[in-house]
């Protein structure tokens, strides 16, 4: 049976184009066929999770039933009551499958959990935010069938971008006007072609042609070497072009379906500081952490006056937020250290910005300092990506 990893080969794009055709024609005629959208979603899910990956397919089905029932029950409960304990339990229950999947390799020597499947963390983000928005009372009309569509929206199922329930619903319920839709088609096509350049040319040059050679040389050098520096930059470029390319495919495909999935990257290497970086790199993940973890923790700490000063509150929460992000990537020392380093960098960055503000006039600010700031940010980020790649771990293990 045919089986694909999404956006991995030309044939996938061929099938995608054919599958999208009825949707495009429908929307151009002012109609949305939700039944067809469901059908095509199921079809692509079978292509992704069927055949040799059938265990993953079963895991996905079980997961979906579990999460939809859980969120449905919580929203039903929330209409009548609003107990904090019940809310916290619902969130914990929603993340338990993901926690098991992330912990299993750390406990069982790298063995993958049988309840895991490609994209489980992205579905968990969607489930958790839906629970939180119900708790806040902003999401009142919950529909389990729609929620299921939102979860399995096939263009973004495997690696995001992470959309929001209410935003997705606005697009899903509406048929875009013809002029607007033509623009979306144009943008979608542009994204997909840019994705081809990113993923199949640039990521290929960096990841497949250059990286293995440099890694080999760096391993042979045992310790610090110029090759290791090369690995750092080349891996960073590969990571960006591969993931940004994938994201462009996902966003472009969504546009064809009349859904404006949010962008994931905005020239991240142009960032002037680390906060700027997190507003440009893997944006839907970073904003998810900002809105559902950072802001909520800050709110909690401030309301209960846990820390004396707002600065301390912000700093502690930065570290917590980014450490959790590190754990989310995987339970290994290098992912967690990656998170902690970024948390610490956000603390230092805030301190520096405050210092600069209070010493205005004494610290020069011009084109040169801006370029210098971008340079430092870029190098710091590349260093943390080297850690993230796990290559340092491999070097240590070889010794």
């Amino acid at each position, binding site marked *: 049976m045919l089986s694909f990893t999404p956006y991995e080969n030309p044939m996938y794009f061929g099938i995608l184009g054919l599958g999208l055709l009825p949707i495009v024609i429908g929307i151009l005629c002012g109609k949305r066929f939700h039944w067809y959208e469901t059908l095509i979603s199921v079809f692509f899910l079978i292509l992704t999770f069927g055949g040799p990956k059938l265990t993953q397919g079963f895991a996905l089905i079980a997961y979906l039933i579990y999460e939809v029932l859980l969120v449905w029950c919580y929203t039903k409960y929330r209409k009548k009551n609003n107990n904090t304990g019940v809310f916290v339990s619902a969130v914990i229950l929603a993340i338990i499958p993901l926690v098991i999947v992330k912990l299993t390799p750390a406990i069982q020597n790298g063995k993958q959990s049988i309840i895991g499947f490609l994209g489980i963390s992205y579905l968990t983000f969607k489930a958790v935010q839906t629970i*939180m*928005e119900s708790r*806040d*009372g*902003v*999401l009142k009309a919950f529909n389990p069938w729609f929620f299921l569509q939102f979860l399995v929206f096939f263009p973004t199922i495997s690696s995001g971008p992470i959309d929001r329930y209410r935003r997705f619903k606005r697009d899903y319920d509406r048929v875009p006007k013809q002029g607007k839709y033509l623009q979306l088609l144009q943008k979608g096509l542009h994204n997909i072609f840019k994705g081809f350049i990113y993923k199949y040319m640039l990521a290929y040059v960096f990841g497949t042609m250059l990286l293995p050679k440099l890694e080999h040389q760096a391993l042979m050098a045992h310790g610090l070497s110029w090759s290791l520096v090369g690995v750092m930059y080349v891996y960073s470029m590969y990571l960006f072009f591969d993931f940004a390319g994938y994201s462009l495919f996902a966003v472009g495909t969504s546009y064809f379906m009349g859904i404006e999935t949010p962008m994931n990257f905005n020239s991240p290497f142009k960032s002037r500081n680390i*906060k700027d970086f997190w507003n440009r790199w893997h944006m839907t993940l970073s904003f998810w952490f*900002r*809105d559902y973890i*950072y*802001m*909520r923790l*800050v*709110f909690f700490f*401030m*309301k209960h006056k846990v820390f004396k000063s*707002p600065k301390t*509150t*912000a700093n502690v*929460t930065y570290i917590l937020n980014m450490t959790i992000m590190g754990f989310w990537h995987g339970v290994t020392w290098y992912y967690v250290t990656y998170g902690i380093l970024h948390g610490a960098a956000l603390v230092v960055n805030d301190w520096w*910005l405050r210092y600069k503000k209070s010493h205005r006039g004494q610290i020069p600010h011009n084109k040169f300092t801006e370029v210098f700031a971008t340079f430092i940010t870029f190098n710091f980020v590349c260093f943390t990506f080297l850690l993230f790649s796990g290559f340092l771990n491999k070097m240590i293990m070889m010794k």
Partner: protein
Amino acid sequence: MDTKETVLNVLQDLTGSDLSDDLDDNLFENGLLDSMGTVQLLLQLQSELGIEVPVSEFERSEWDTPNKIIANTEEMLK
């Protein structure tokens, strides 16, 4: 004191700038507000005006200028 004045006072305490002449400036773009500032703003509005603004209600693009913040606050006081 009217709502507008209260909101501007809260914003002045938070950002250290008097914003009464820059009612349409984007506070996130010019670096005066960030997530932390936002939460402080929500808590301050809660204690001074008694309005409950849950974090989910806070859509950045709808709260990014003094004018928008004033309008949203007035809306919630109705």
